[in-house]
């Protein structure tokens, strides 16, 4: 265990029991993700990307297998430690933004800091800085419904970075955005990834993601089909695009 893996999974399986049938969403996932990597998880709809995410992010328990975050087995954590992990170590970004609707942009961002024990004042200062860093310095007191989709996602990104997490988990962060806005969001994530050295794991259908990823995990039917480095993929982006369209 000399290697410093931020995320490591061993034989992770997840089955959903739907009464008569069980759906095997994950069928044995082994992967290692190093600190500071930008990972894209790609695969067709229903291949298990979101399920894998929830399991890695401590949002759902695997039916079998182990998930290690910083070499700590997530299954061993109690409710408090799990809340701590979600608050401090992992930042979540969702396709649907998931801002708290009754709160302003700034309040949304300060929330995880307040859960982490920062004082209101410190949280506010840091929140304003974060909003500036995602280009929303002017929108501090806007409510989510007064912001465009792209702006909401920027707020969500700022919120995910609030407690300087080690890992950012993003499930189709560009899924509800137009092409241009999606590109901007991807650019922003990459920038923060370089700047802060945070590990980014992003599930996506969005081929624009390939350009910024260090490695791409291709998932099919709940298994990792292949793992590619960016350099290898770029050569065949044309064919990949063809495949995805089908």
């Amino acid at each position, binding site marked *: 265990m000399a290697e410093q893996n931020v995320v490591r999974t061993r034989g992770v399986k997840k089955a959903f029991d739907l009464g008569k049938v069980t759906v095997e969403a994950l069928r044995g996932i082994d992967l290692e993700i190093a600190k500071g990597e930008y990972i894209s998880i790609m695969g067709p709809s229903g291949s298990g990307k*979101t399920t894998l*995410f*929830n399991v890695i*992010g401590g*949002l*759902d328990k695997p039916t079998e297998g182990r998930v290690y975050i*910083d*070499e*700590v087995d997530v299954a061993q954590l109690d*409710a*408090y*430690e799990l*809340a*701590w992990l*979600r*608050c*401090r*170590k992992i930042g*979540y970004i*969702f*396709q*649907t933004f*998931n*801002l*708290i*609707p*009754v*709160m302003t942009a700034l309040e949304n961002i300060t*929330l*995880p800091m*307040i*859960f*982490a*024990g920062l*004082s*209101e004042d410190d949280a506010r200062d840091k929140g304003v800085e974060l909003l500036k860093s995602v280009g929303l310095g002017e929108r501090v007191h806007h409510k989510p419904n007064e912001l465009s989709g792209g702006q909401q996602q920027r707020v969500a990104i700022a*919120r995910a970075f609030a407690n300087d997490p*080690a890992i950012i988990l993003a*499930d*189709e962060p560009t*899924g509800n955005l137009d092409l241009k806005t999606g590109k901007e969001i991807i650019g922003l994530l990459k920038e923060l990834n370089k700047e802060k050295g945070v590990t980014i794991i992003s599930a996506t259908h969005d081929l624009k993601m390939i350009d910024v990823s260090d490695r791409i995990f291709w998932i099919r039917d709940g298994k990792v089909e292949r793992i590619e480095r960016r350099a290898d993929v770029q050569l065949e982006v044309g064919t990949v695009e063809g495949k995805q369209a089908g």
Partner: protein
Amino acid sequence: MQEIFDENVFKKGIGRQINLPFLKAVSTAFKNIRVRFGRSFITIGGIFFSLTFLMSTFTNNVIAQSLLASGTDEVKFLLQPMAQEVQARQVWLISLSLLVCIIGIMNAMLTSVTERYREIGTWKCLGALDRFIVELFLLESTFQGLIGSIGGAILGFLFPLFVNIGKYGTQVIEVLPWLEILKYGAITIVIGLVLSIAGAIYPAYRATQMVPADAMRQEM
């Protein structure tokens, strides 16, 4: 090296998490009521009417008793026959209206919880403990209960007061034991709060049982 999972860091973080977020829960619960005022208004209305009924019964009884004790003979004659058998029916009606009230609260809070599954999941992703989620819903219900029962206590006092003045004249005000009225007003408000909290316990528990993974799901 497991610096980030250091035992002490855990304890410190969690110790701090107890106090500050309580204020956050208070302000959030308050905002939730304001934003959803249309809906809250109906719940508050339910509490308001059943507590108006309760308080007006209290007020009527207090007025009747003080008139019997020190009113004019004519009034005593009017009041005498309705004293006893009315009581049993009153208790029955009040219990029924309070029961309906608590079911209304429970129903409204359950709807509120189901409707906000994604928001609850998000709270959990941001590091909220179950107790925060519980606080959020209990406070929301408590605020609703407070508004409804204060309103109910006031109307439940004023309405029967004027009715009685209309029937028996201004002597009603002269014999009125204000302290007694105040006591029943307080009892009414406390009952309103207890109902609101009791009605929200199960819905709040349901909220804590939600899996945060639901926040990730994407049906709109």
